[in-house]
């Protein structure tokens, strides 16, 4: 197992989310999490990334509990696509290149041609790179975020509605990029049958015990 959650209890003030939730992901698995709004889909990602700490229970990465000492190491292996992204007032090119400047992340800077090709696959023109990120539409922002996750080439990806802003042709290309590495583990949320059908397994949060 690459990621395991054991007996996870978590609640927001006056809003219980998980009580004794277990899950596990095998290396290379592509899994989609389903559930009503408020069922804890985004919270599950935040618990795995250590942005939230379970009230009880633990999350393990390669059988090691994720604690403050091991968290950074796990995060160098992960990429996360949240639903709502705002990278501020820099150009899209600056936004896309910034995470590749992190010194201890292992991220290696992609070539410009690679970025432009990926942009075109996701329905973004090369001129988008020179635009200010905050001027982009929500859909364009989501596509830039997805492009960034693909460029990061991480072994673990946590993607919130990755295909919601894409047309059919772009979805196929996105899936080709994301699924090309059979060792890559992807945990996602999605309402898109096109995406769900291509995943190996569904975790249904509405029926968790």
């Amino acid at each position, binding site marked *: 197992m690459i990621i395991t959650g054991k007996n996870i209890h978590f609640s927001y003030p006056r809003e219980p989310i998980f009580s004794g939730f277990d899950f596990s992901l095998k290396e290379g698995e592509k899994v989609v999490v389903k559930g009503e709004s408020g069922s804890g889909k985004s919270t599950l990602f*935040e618990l795995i*990334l*250590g*942005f*939230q*700490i379970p009230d009880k229970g633990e999350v393990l990465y390669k059988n090691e509990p994720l604690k*403050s000492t091991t*968290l*950074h190491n796990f*995060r*160098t*292996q*992960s*990429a*996360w696509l*949240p639903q*709502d*992204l*705002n*990278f*501020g007032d*820099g150009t899209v090119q600056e936004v896309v290149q*910034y*995470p590749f*400047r*992190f*010194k*201890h*992340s*292992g*991220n290696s800077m992609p070539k410009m041609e690679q970025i432009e090709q990926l942009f075109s696959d996701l329905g973004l023109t090369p001129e988008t790179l020179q635009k200010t990120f905050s001027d982009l539409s929500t859909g364009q922002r989501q596509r830039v*975020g997805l492009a960034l996750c693909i460029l*990061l080439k*991480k072994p673990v990806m*946590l993607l919130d509605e990755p295909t919601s802003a894409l047309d059919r042709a772009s979805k196929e290309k996105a899936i080709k990029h994301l699924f090309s590495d059979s060792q890559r583990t992807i945990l996602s949320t999605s309402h898109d049958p096109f995406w769900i059908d291509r995943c190996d397994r569904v975790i249904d949060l509405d029926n968790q015990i």
Partner: protein
Amino acid sequence: MDIIQLSWFQLAIGFIILLIPAAIFRWYKTGLNRQMMIATIRMTLQLLFVGYYLEYLFEYDNAWINTAWIMIMVIVADFATIDRSDLKAKWALILPIFFATFLGIILINLFFLEVVIQLPTFLEAQYAIPITGMVLGNCLRSNVIGINDFYYNLKNNKERYQFYLASGATRAEALYPFFQSALKKSANPTLAAMATIGLVSLPGMITGQILSGASPMTAIQYQIMIMLAIFSGTILSVFLAIKFCNRTVFFENDMLDHSIFKD
């Protein structure tokens, strides 16, 4: 050329001029007259207190007493910074902002007083106290802008910060863009003041020095020096304040402690 000494009676006459704003406020029913009275009384009493205190301070002129007074000024500025910001008065913020401001002020003072002006007496009150006051007043304003911008920007753009962390950034790397924005915002007012000084505004320091008999060029030289001190002092104190606060307001998992926010 010596300055004309003001008698208390002459100063009292000065207050008569307040009848003009008072009449305007009354005519427009602004309800500001009470506030104006309180502000005027506070301003007068505070300044009289400082006047008496400074007389003693100048008489003793001891580096330790001067440092203690600077420390008191920094403590007052520290609480005022928190009070004017939209953050809660928690020790996790009060202490780091105090140390950052104190360190910034001391460094700037040592450089300008001892290296540039080369005072014959270490931290001489006549120079150290007014210069500290001017730099500190500006540090306060910049700290409020910088600290507010940094933490509220981080709160409102949490996903951006978390995205960077999730991509392998260290906490400092993930906070870098937020630092950039806070520094820009807090530097802007001083940069704007530097760009228009002399053309639009004639600062209090020049006015005060010319009134007390200094030649205009000496007053200008001091003003240039004080602008350099203000600018570098504000940037240094904002930088240190955010750096120091960041050591106390984050949890081990790199998440910000949201109990620092007022709302």
